């Protein structure tokens, strides 16, 4: 069994650079897609250019969309970014549910 696993990992590594890491992070922990996005946006060590302005702009627009137009962005932590995503998705789902309920 271990040899089969090793063979599979070898072929995956040859097929695509970084595929193993991507697959592992996708399946081996309990993080959601938006947890991972929040972590990427919050960790500016890997940013190739200064993204503070665009990230602030995106979050401000998401907050306004979610009904928090007066909220101020004080920090770009993963927890805060994830909370903004959650509020945005809640609003998206609310609007979609209203539309679907009008049919049902």
């Amino acid at each position, binding site marked *: 069994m271990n040899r089969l696993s090793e063979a599979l990992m070898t072929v995956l590594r040859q097929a695509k650079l970084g595929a193993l890491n991507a697959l592992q992070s996708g399946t081996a922990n309990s993080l959601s897609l938006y947890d991972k996005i929040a972590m990427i946006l919050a960790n500016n060590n890997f940013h190739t250019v200064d993204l503070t302005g665009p990230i602030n702009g995106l979050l*401000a627009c998401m907050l306004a969309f979610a009904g928090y*137009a007066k909220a101020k962005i004080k920090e770009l932590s993963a927890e805060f970014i994830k909370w903004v995503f959650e509020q945005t998705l809640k609003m998206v789902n609310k*609007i979609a549910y209203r539309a679907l309920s*009008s*049919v*049902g």
Partner: protein
Amino acid sequence: MAHATGHQTGFVLVGKGTSPTGRMNPFKNDLVLAIRGTASLYDASTDCRANLSVCDGGHSVHAGFNTLFETLKSELAPFLSELKPSATVHCVGHSLGGAVASLVADWAKRRFNANVKLYTFGAPKVSLTNFALSTTNALKSKNIFRCVNGGDVVPMVPFWPFMQAPYNPPEYRMDNNQIIAPWHHLMKYYTRNSQKQSWDSINKRVTFNPFKRVTLDISHANQVQPSIY
């Protein structure tokens, strides 16, 4: 198949093209698979289950739609296996029905190598990029008629990373409305907007382009409202 027993309702109506005596019918032997949309809050719960599952083509798709599609497959297979090579399968659906029609169309093409045309009205996004690309290439974008009302929110959900097919080509925009409101999802508005129109006369627009560069500034936030963004 269109019958109701207790809590179970028929989902697909199957029609077959016939040729009245002495007349030529270009749609003779064609199949129409008309799949109904959301009709109850139970169906809405199917729509809202935006988890992923793997369809039998190996792609990641919306779990709720895929579960429903799996229950229909065995009923549809006899119709598709008897299909004449020159015949076309027309998969049609509104809302939830459009999403399931997308899965049926992809399956009919891959499993039965049928000529398939897909018509969806106000259908939500069904899958991640891999299925959207695969089904666009398999069916060809000219055979996919994704129709949306401008103010209908349902074709915009679930949120990214869900994608729609056709992957990049434009969708048929049935009206020029920009304000999102629940009633734009109703079939009667799709029926009204599509009356007396040919496919060529309907506007086409790319509403979501994964390659488009968009940068938002904090000063844009005061323009944002759930009904117009």
